[in-house]
């Protein structure tokens, strides 16, 4: 990385770190050994939500520490945990999905339409719109719009109506995937065959083959075309 050092402020305290490092690597460069606020380090797990400000901009900015490069004079704080309401439900005992959603998360209707959630989402999702779709009963749309959510907590932390958009979304996605999309026939067929033991003989045979035989069969495989 570049040689030049830039000042950043970790929870207000000044450190000089190499330009271009991600916030996470800058924390480690400064000498932190992270326990919280660090997970997959690749933008998937939502452990490293971070809020920061930069000079000349009054707005709070957000990002994942593992994905966001530092900039000079950035003042940052990690938000590794945010307490939220997670409703308990049994996916097999859901009657009307929309009614259930409103029972599980009655606050969903309190959405003010301010769209703050969208402005803070590091995945560039639009939580307000997927919540609205869910409230219209359009679970397919809500599932699609919310799919990339990493449940980092930032939208819940900033929502003035105190919604937890991602917990609403996971209920919607699970209900939609399980109950509103048919189980494919090819999967049902294969599972039935396996349960009936129809593949046992072939597997027993190949598992008992000599290594020479296996190698021969392996070489003779025919490949489906790309």
């Amino acid at each position, binding site marked *: 990385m570049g040689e030049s050092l830039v000042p950043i402020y970790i929870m207000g305290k000044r450190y000089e770190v190499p330009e271009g490092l991600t916030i996470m690597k800058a924390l*480690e460069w400064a000498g932190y050994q992270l326990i919280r606020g660090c*997970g997959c380090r690749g933008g998937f797990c939502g452990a490293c939500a971070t809020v920061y400000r930069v000079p000349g901009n009054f707005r709070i900015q957000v990002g994942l520490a593992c*994905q966001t490069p530092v900039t000079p004079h950035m003042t940052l704080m990690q938000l590794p945990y945010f307490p939220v309401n997670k409703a*308990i439900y049994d996916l097999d005992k859901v009657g009307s999905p929309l009614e259930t959603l409103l029972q599980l998360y009655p606050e969903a209707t309190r959405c003010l339409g301010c769209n703050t959630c969208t402005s803070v989402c590091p995945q560039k999702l639009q939580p307000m719109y997927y919540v609205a779709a869910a409230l219209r009963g359009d679970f397919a749309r809500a599932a699609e719009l919310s799919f990339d959510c990493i449940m980092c907590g930032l939208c819940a932390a900033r929502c003035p109506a105190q919604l937890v958009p991602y917990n609403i979304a996971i209920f919607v996605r699970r*209900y939609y995937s399980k109950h509103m999309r048919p189980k494919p026939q*090819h999967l049902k067929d294969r599972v039935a065959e396996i349960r009936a033991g129809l593949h046992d003989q072939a*597997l027993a045979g190949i598992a008992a083959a000599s290594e020479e035989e296996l190698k021969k069969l392996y070489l003779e495989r025919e490949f489906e075309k790309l």
Partner: protein
Amino acid sequence: MGYPIEMQESIRKLEATRAFRLQQEIPRLTPEEKTRLLEQCHPDFRPDGMRSVRVGPNKGQRMQNELVDILEAYSRIDPDRVDLSRIDYDVDVLVVGGGGGGATAALIAHENGARVLLATKLRLGDANTMMAEGGIAAATQPNDSPYLHFLDTIGGGRFQNKRELVWALVHDAPLIVEWLKDLGAMFDTHPNGDLVVSFAGGHCRRRVHSCKDLSGMEFMRVIRDELWNRRVEVLEFSPAVELLLDERGRCAGAILMNLETREHIIVRARAVILATGGIGRLHPNKFPTTNHYGATADGLVIAYRAGARLLHMDAIQYHPTGAAWPEQMLGQLITEALRGNGAQLVNVHGERFINELETRDVTSSAIIREVRDRKNGVRTPTGMEGVWLDTPLIDIRGGVGKLDRMFAGIVHRFREYGIDVHKEPILVFPTQHYQNGGIEIDPEGRTDIPGLFAAGEVAGGVQGRNRLGGNSLVDIFVFGRRAGQAAALFVREGPSPGKLTLEHVRRYHRELAAEGIEKGRVSPLLLPDYTRPEVKERRYS
């Protein structure tokens, strides 16, 4: 930001050959060619990368240096200071590890009537599962069969897999896909509802089922949600630092450490399931890794001290396509599904050099040969070298929109750095990805130690010496379920645990001392340490 000028010149060469490459067939290597390539270029064959371990059940066997370092180390705790009469949790099944394998095992053991505690080092779901992009392999298509899946898996593992484990894997795989679908996982589907399947290297059929390029994340968050719904007890930030045995040598619990208060927690359990994942954060051969922050081989260490045998710990997987640019993404996973859907590997001159659907060990070796031996790598301004992964081919072959539909995560992450993968390729180089071996298990996840089970990456034998793409997600669920069931049964039918002891730790310490290994190094590591030497030097206290 995007690509610097000198890299753009090479991109123009890649564009110039694209039409030719679309028609070009590269035959697969013969077994002899494969062997030669692996010996020449695979990092496992570097003579100084491994050494013999001097203690424990695998004494005398060669393993990765970084692993031997932590096996030849003392416990973090002094057995004489631990008060084992003060039991904090008394449960039927203790699951150690909060990734896909552990969460599944906990769910299934709970379903089978066991009182379950799941302890994990970071948060529930902080694991490699969360980062698995490509998907889950299973023979669910009419043109496919568990038989063919068996053949591909065992050939890919260089015929060293334990056959009864492969049998279990491919037999259960379609059942697992159904189980995940019933849990509400949002699989990619065709308009008629059939599941979309893609190729991965070494599979002779399309059989990798995906949820966009966030497959592992989707499975993990669904299973985690279900664990929460069932109110299974979970202890986060509480890694296991030692197993507990009873006086008859059965596993009877574990000592956990609260990472934040450094207090220890004694758990008595009638069965323990280890699902602690892999080794990537030890950085074998100094490679970058795709792995999660917590992948420090803790489970291997504590099981080994308790007397469990390890298998194939000299076989490490390097994923062919780790990001090599931008620097901020160095070593991060670029899913194999891109190659499975037609993206090609291309050198600095715009030429292909390997069939992209060879197994990972072979493909990685071919990239290393192309860069290191043949000097055909593309160099970045920071001195890193790699080869191109020609992603625009995916939309060219599959129609505009396919990249956005199936690889939104990749598109998004590169866009952040000014790279448009619809139009520009990605620079890649092999990165450490997986430990092929692990604690030896049987098809029910049982280890050599009664009462100790293992599932997922920490376990060995399923994948032989090289795992195929898509076979890890299926592994963790198949063996997570089997271990969960077997542990619950063991609890119901097995004898009650006796008196808790750490005698095995004392014995291991004596063995270390007898080999002249000095005190000072302790394990498990728990967290990787990326502190700069300049900072460490000035920690005077």
